[in-house]
């Protein structure tokens, strides 16, 4: 019996960056194959649900899937020989059976990544191929759910996000070991922050290995890799996943009214995290 570390975040908050860092770190600082990530997984992958629980999630309702997901993680934690690292975009919320989606007994801890919601809005709009206003609307919608069935079956299981503030509150209130990382701090001092993440996950790494892995996943490198190889996580039809990778880009992308709306809707949480 091992357990699971959740790499948790609202979308577009640096999760992929952290995962690629961990990929590189495991490979001694080599450049990761951005399309073949193995060291970390995704908690909402349909394939894992289907194979482990030996049932077709495509034959289940969203409610049935949500009820079964804690069992998936329990089985995965039980059968793993080393801690599992799973990305999660779901809010830390109870399932319809009123138990934690991520079972406490299977949980070793969580790294919670957070980013200025004004930058998230810009990034999310590009990622989803939507307008910034639509992205802001989504970030304020308590029912917001990723990978909801539309006209076809999404690759991922449905993930309830809640609002941006609700997402933050849910994870920061979860009764688990936790490391909070701000995207802006990861940009400002990546070696220190990624080093903290590695230590939290119990990874034994020398400072020069951390530095090498940080260097291997520098924004320009990831962008160049996407340019030549494409990136499997980019939405179809969206030009690029690794778009800008900066803090404060919202200043030249949001109208004053858009920024004001985000600040009004998420002010208390933004203040708590030092964004206001």
């Amino acid at each position, binding site marked *: 019996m091992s357990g699971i570390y959740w790499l948790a975040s609202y979308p577009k908050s640096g999760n992929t960056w952290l995962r690629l860092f961990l990929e590189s770190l495991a490979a001694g600082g080599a450049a990761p194959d951005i*399309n073949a990530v193995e060291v970390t997984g995704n908690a909402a992958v*349909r*394939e894992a649900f*289907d*194979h*482990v*629980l*030996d*049932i*077709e*999630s*495509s*034959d*289940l*309702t969203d409610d*049935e899937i949500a*009820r*079964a997901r804690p*069992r998936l993680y329990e*089985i995965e934690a039980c059968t793993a020989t080393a801690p599992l690292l799973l990305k999660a975009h779901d809010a830390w919320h109870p399932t319809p059976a009123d138990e934690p989606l991520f079972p406490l007994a299977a949980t070793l801890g969580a790294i919670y990544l957070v980013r200025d919601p004004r930058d998230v809005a810009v990034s999310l709009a590009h990622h989803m191929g939507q307008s910034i206003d639509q992205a802001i609307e989504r970030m304020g919608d308590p029912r917001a759910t990723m990978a909801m*069935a*539309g*006209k*076809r*079956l*999404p*690759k991922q299981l449905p993930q309830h996000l809640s609002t941006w503030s609700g997402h933050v509150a849910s994870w920061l209130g979860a009764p688990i070991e936790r490391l909070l990382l701000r995207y802006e701090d990861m940009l400002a001092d990546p070696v220190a922050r990624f080093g903290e993440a590695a230590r939290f996950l119990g990874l034994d790494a020398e400072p020069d290995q951390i530095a090498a892995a940080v260097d291997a996943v520098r924004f320009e490198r990831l962008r160049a890799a*996407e340019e*030549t*190889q*494409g*990136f*499997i996580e*980019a939405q*179809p*039809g969206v030009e690029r996943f690794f778009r800008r990778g900066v803090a404060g880009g919202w200043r030249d992308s949001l109208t004053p009214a858009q920024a004001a709306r985000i600040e009004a809707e998420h002010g208390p949480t933004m203040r708590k995290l030092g964004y206001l």
Partner: protein
Amino acid sequence: MHNDMLLCGWRVRSALPLPELLPWQGDDRPVNVEIAVGGIPQPEAQPVFVLPHSRLWADGAFLLALDGVGRFWVQGGQRVKVEPAAGVDESELRAFLLGSVLGVLCHQRGLLPIHASAVRIGGRAILIAGNSGAGKSTLAAALGARGHALAADDVAAFDPAQGLLLPAFPNRKLATDVLEALALDHRGLVANRPGQPKFHVSAQAGFDPAPLPALAVYLLSTRKARQSDDIERADPALAIARLDRMVYRRAIGLHIQPRQALFHALSRLMQTATVHLLPRDEAKPTPERLDRLAERVETHARGLAAR
């Protein structure tokens, strides 16, 4: 007089209507599979394998339980008992009868169920295998639009003793966007589960229950942005491992059939069928894209058959 039905070449007698199946028109052989309602046994013995929805006993008896849908008992490859939950729609029972239950029946009967759709091309079967959402039924339907009969949708039963694929039943499940691209109206069609964007579509044209030799297996995968979409032969050393991942109800099957039996069945399949990787675009299906994909697979399969 019973209205027996045809499934994988078996004579099926069912207390539940199964409109997706064709009526039995074969000889007067004894019934192969009987589906009854109610009377789920309660074994005293502990199950030997337990998953959230599934339980398996030492004699290979299997129970699938879904709150709000029902319970399904499957034994000996020939007896199925269904206990519907109150208020369940019969179509929901069929989603599991013609899915998990069919898969377990195959394992209990020593068959190899592959998570694949199958299409008849020139008297042989091609299997289109992949995880849920990979586009198996879509490609099979696009080949159907080019005149190639369906042999199986989602679960393809291979008989290792005969070395042949057993055509299952003439029905496919298609997502709304594919129905639109194929100019089919989803109004009036029965959904896989109420509210799901996936519907049952009859595919009786050309359906023939006679077992078929397998020509090829195409493994669907998502095409990466800059990757070529060429159909490539899978490295033979890896092909069996990749195919092994496509065994339907694999975790349960491994507790019903010996590992060696499944491995033998996979190698038997690969004696006649070559395994190919088919990277597929995730872009929105359009009539042109679907037909182009189907045409490429058709040309590829014909090339294999001509060898």
